[in-house]
């Protein structure tokens, strides 16, 4: 069975910053939830941009590699085509329409849905995120951070995408809210079988939620495996300051060893 998303040997460079991704491969199985982890600047957002057709906007270029959505090669296709092909995008920074109402925001996402089903899809999103229903006529710019994130997700989900790409969901949000949102995403995954690629800095949370994970470090994929495997690995400890906080205090040993491992396990 083909994977929903298949990335093979992808290399991406930016005009003035050089190579950001180097021979990266990743796959998202149908119905699977995959976490992409890595420190700041590791290249996670670049990967998402390459997949979603937004590289041009940010002066980036694919130098090598292939990306396929359910078997169809998609590199070079314009973003709006990809959305129509079933790729829902929730980029970093939420990117909602601040001057439009909540409902209007969702309706924009519903542009790809056949007329008759729009109402139904909107209701589905409101059921998923009741807060949005409460605020449906309010201007999106006035929403709290968590509500805006729900809105961005809702807008992507309205179109019932086959693949959902989420970039840095937890940024700037309280853990409680992030957890609640992830729970709702799990509901979506369970009921609709939507495949998901989640880019996260908060590795712990992502690994609770995902079934498999990849770790990106300075543009290279350093580890991949099931969520449990990755959670236990040394590489994860090396890549994150966040998880270090959960180490026993005053114990530099394992960290020093871990970073060695990270470099070796390419």
């Amino acid at each position: 069975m083909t994977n929903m998303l298949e990335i093979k040997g992808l290399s991406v460079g930016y005009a003035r910053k050089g190579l950001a991704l180097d021979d990266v491969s990743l796959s998202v199985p149908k119905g699977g939830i995959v976490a992409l982890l890595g420190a700041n600047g590791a290249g996670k957002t670049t990967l998402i941009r390459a997949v979603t057709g937004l590289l041009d906007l940010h002066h980036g270029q694919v130098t090598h590699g292939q990306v396929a959505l359910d078997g169809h090669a998609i590199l070079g296709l314009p973003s709006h085509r990809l959305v129509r092909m079933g790729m829902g995008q929730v980029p970093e920074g939420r990117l909602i329409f601040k001057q439009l109402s909540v409902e209007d925001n969702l309706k924009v996402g519903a542009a790809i849905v056949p007329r008759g089903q729009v109402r139904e899809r909107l209701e589905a999103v409101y059921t998923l995120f009741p807060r949005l229903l409460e605020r449906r006529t309010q201007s999106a710019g006035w929403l709290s951070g968590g509500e805006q994130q729900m809105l961005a997700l809702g807008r992507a989900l309205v179109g019932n995408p086959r693949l959902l790409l989420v970039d840095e969901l937890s940024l700037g949000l309280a853990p409680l809210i992030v957890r609640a949102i992830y729970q709702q995403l799990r509901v979506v995954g369970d009921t609709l079988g939507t495949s998901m690629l989640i880019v996260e800095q908060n590795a712990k949370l992502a690994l609770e939620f995902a079934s498999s994970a990849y770790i990106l470090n300075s543009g290279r994929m350093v580890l991949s495996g099931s969520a449990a495997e990755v959670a236990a690995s040394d590489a994860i400890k090396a890549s994150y300051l966040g998880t270090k906080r959960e180490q026993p205090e005053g114990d530099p040993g394992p960290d020093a060893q871990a970073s060695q491992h990270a470099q070796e396990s390419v």
Partner: protein
Amino acid sequence: MLAQVLFSGLALGSIYGLVALGFAVVFKATEVFNFAQGMFVVCGAYLAITGISLLNLPFPLAMLSMVLAAALLGVLIHMFLIQPVAGQPMLVVIMLTIALSIVLRAAIEIIFGSQGRTLNTPLPSGVFKIGELRISQLHLTAALVSWGCMAAFGAFFRFTSVGLLMRATADSHEAAVVSGVNVNMMNRLAWAIGVVLAAVGGLFLGQLQIASTELETIGLLALPAVVIGGMQSIPGAIVGGLLVGVIEQLAASYISPKSSDIVIYALLLLILMVRPWGLFGQRELGRV
């Protein structure tokens, strides 16, 4: 008489408002300050002449072809001139629109000659009186049609799904891309609308005066109108247009005919110094 002046001012102002609206739509969508909007007004007048006098089409057909030709012009301009320079600094884009106006002007003068031409339409051109007031039917028709167009656009923008997509694109280009909106298509639509609205304005201005490339200066009054009203504000553009129309007529009647332009530009300068974001604009635009 004051009422008379006000009436003409409001009528002309309605036309300016229409042209300013076209300008604002393009600006909101593509962030291009289109200095060629004045020439688009001229194009409208000459497209009307082509349809009516040169091709001898029946009036409704001539109007339809004028609108379609204007829309096509807008789309082509966006595709070949605006899109290639997307993201370039402002002077490049401004100069591009200025160069465009130069080319259009030259082309029109080559095709039609540099003298003005009379634009004859079956639109009513008589005058009727209400008490002391002489109401020019042409003025009235122009005002009504302008308001009709503005209302139609407003309805389209607010209530249709395409209008929603346009509003979304104007709100955030990147968010629109991510939501699956074909942004290029939206921008082309915006330009088509901008040129069509200017063309309709040209139809009336060409009749009220004479169709010539000199109409450009009148069309350019849309610029101060938009700034005074508030650059990113659609209602602001309309109000700005009305204000400019009224002020122009007042200045022409009570000071001197030549002073009307300068009064408006002096007002523009004042607004820029005191309240640059215009009457209806939002302060955040001060990021400029």
